[in-house]
């Protein structure tokens, strides 16, 4: 990991950092966008929107709260979830294979953020049923109703599994619930 934060430099008005941001996070955003969209053309447009959001929100990045890659993934997810909602459909995802589990450290792309390692650890700790529901929701973008249909679990249990799973990851990440600056609800 590097402590040369391109987002911090963008927030300070460094124009060169904009291209560096694309070079550093282009593949990450593209990979996430491809999961959420149904076509390359749709992913292309989504990626443009994500990066504009990212540059505009660069001032909200706080390296004491999150790694830069986690912040980038958060901004990307938010934009893509919004896109999916507007289109009233769920992300294009591959079916979760039987026995699919959390990738180990050796299976990852080269640079894994600290948060990703902690999240993987949290996913390993929680009960399999809870992990399955959380992965259906976060990674496969399934709605609560779809998860109820898929698993046969009551709606309240599905919501509870998601919330508790996120809470466990958050606890490991050391989140205290303190606000990030300049963040508006539903942005």
């Amino acid at each position, binding site marked *: 990991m590097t402590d040369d934060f391109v987002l911090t430099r963008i927030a300070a008005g460094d124009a060169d950092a904009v291209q560096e941001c694309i070079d550093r996070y282009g*593949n990450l955003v593209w990979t996430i966008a491809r999961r959420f969209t149904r076509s390359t053309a749709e992913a292309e447009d989504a990626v443009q929107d994500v990066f504009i959001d990212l540059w505009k929100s660069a001032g909200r990045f706080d390296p004491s709260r999150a790694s830069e890659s986690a912040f980038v993934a958060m901004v990307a997810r938010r934009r893509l979830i919004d896109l999916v909602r507007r289109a009233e459909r769920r992300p294009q995802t591959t079916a979760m294979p039987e026995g699919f589990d959390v990738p180990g450290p050796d299976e990852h792309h080269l640079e894994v953020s600290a948060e990703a390692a902690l999240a993987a650890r949290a996913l390993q700790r929680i009960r399999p049923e809870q992990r399955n529901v959380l992965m259906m929701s976060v990674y496969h973008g399934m709605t609560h109703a779809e998860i109820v249909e898929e698993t046969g679990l009551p709606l309240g249990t599905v919501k509870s599994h998601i919330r508790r799973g996120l809470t466990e990851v958050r606890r490991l990440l050391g989140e205290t619930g303190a606000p990030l600056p300049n963040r508006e609800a539903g942005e």
Partner: protein
Amino acid sequence: MNARDRARLDELLAERATQGLDGVATEELRALLAASAQGDDEGFDLAAAAIELALLVDLEEMPARVRNRLSLRGRAWARSMPGRDQ
């Protein structure tokens, strides 16, 4: 904020992080956040992003055409960036 509102706030924050909120729920969240006097809370959003990163095994190369288009957009944006000190 009472326990019931706190639970509802957590529910809405978790939903925002995983499947987004419609306009009504967004307004409800805004009201609850205002009542909580703690500002917005991105903890669940960051947790979901961390899970996303944890489950990504490989990154797909962004096509050159997309990268070039994005670079053009980036240069245009950089020329008008708010904090630019030039």
